[in-house]
């Protein structure tokens, strides 16, 4: 791999009980995927505040993944439903602000879906490579008054 090629930085907020275990399963099954993702383990997507998405862009993430349990599978019954609601609204705000929604990915990945985790990471990495660095937000972070 050439040293100059752009490698995106991807921050993944995942729930402890489904997606984190899904990622573990990908490992157990030796399913290879790009090394661009950094996992932040949270107990539940219900814990996931919108500020964390912004924070990720502030520290230079080129894409953010938020992933939890499928509907009905939440370890805490309803955390993912609460999260889903907030995302619906938050996306609308980001759209109005002109934040590129192609940089934000939401998935449900269960503890059994190691394969899906691999595919998701491959795809996100690939699509973010194509999009290039998220200059939009880097700009916001760099331009001083």
């Amino acid at each position: 791999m050439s040293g100059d090629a752009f490698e995106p930085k991807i921050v993944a907020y995942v729930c402890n009980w489904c997606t984190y275990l899904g990622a573990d399963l990908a490992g157990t099954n030796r399913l290879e995927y790009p090394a661009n993702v950094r996992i932040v383990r949270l107990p539940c997507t219900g814990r996931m505040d919108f500020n964390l998405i912004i924070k990720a862009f502030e520290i230079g993430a080129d894409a953010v993944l938020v992933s939890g349990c499928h509907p009905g599978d939440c370890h805490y019954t309803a955390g993912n439903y609460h999260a889903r609601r907030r995302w619906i609204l938050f996306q609308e705000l980001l759209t109005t602000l002109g934040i590129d929604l192609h940089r934000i990915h939401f998935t449900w990945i269960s503890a059994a879906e190691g394969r899906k985790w691999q595919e998701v990471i491959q795809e996100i990495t690939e699509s973010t490579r194509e999009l290039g660095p998220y200059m939009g937000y880097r700009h916001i972070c760099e331009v001083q008054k």
Partner: protein
Amino acid sequence: MIAQLRTRCRRLLSDGDVQVVIGYEYCEATGAAHPTFLTDPAQADRLTWNGACHHNLVTYLKRPEIQALGRAAVIVKACDERSLVVLQRESQIDRQRVYVIGVTCAADHTRDKETCRACTTPSPRFADEVIGSPPASSAEAKGADGQDRYAQLDRFMERSTEERLTYWQSELQRCTKCYACRQACPLCYCQRCIVDKNQPICIDPATTTKGNFAWHITRAFHLAGRCVGCDACTNACPAGIDLRLLNQSLSRAAEVNFHFRAGEDLDSAPPIGTYSLQDQESFIR
């Protein structure tokens, strides 16, 4: 109607029902209506009511200096009343401690304001008393039933994603974080605002574009499913940033997705803190 309003407020103060009346007063110097706080029945003649009374007086109920005066009477328009409903729902108002005087809007009031043009509820519904009678058939007088409430937002959304980001970059650069938007908002009542929390620093307090984005995203989202569209924030902004666009995008999302309009009634559950199994998830893979 003004005479009736004055008589009523004079009476409330002289009877000791309330210790302060929050109302509008005509200001010679500016030729506009300003909020006024009356504690003496003799001051009641200063009260006025007309189409230029833009302020949402509910905001003042959260101020400690007003609370210290005792029980307050507050004059509300139907639109302001919605914020009262939200406050009540969020346990911020002891309804017994506030006397609410509703005033109706005449059909010709404030036709220049977009929110007023799209308004369909000219008469307060939860007030202790209502002064004035609503125009005959409001919905008809207004044409369509609020369908152009988001006309300005629609126009803005015609721009491309990049254009929108550029727009906000240049707009938010002007923000000095004076927090007038927070101060003016009837629903920003936190004991300690998240922006003042420093362990950890969730929102960069600097007045950089980065810090300003973080603040305004947070401010707007904290009003998701709560903002009643009184525009107090936009009107208060000394930099002239059109914050209403952000508020409206969330209000509309709540309406479209959850059939929810903030302040409509005391019973419906707000979108944040609740959920439905039927919520859409086409964006989730």
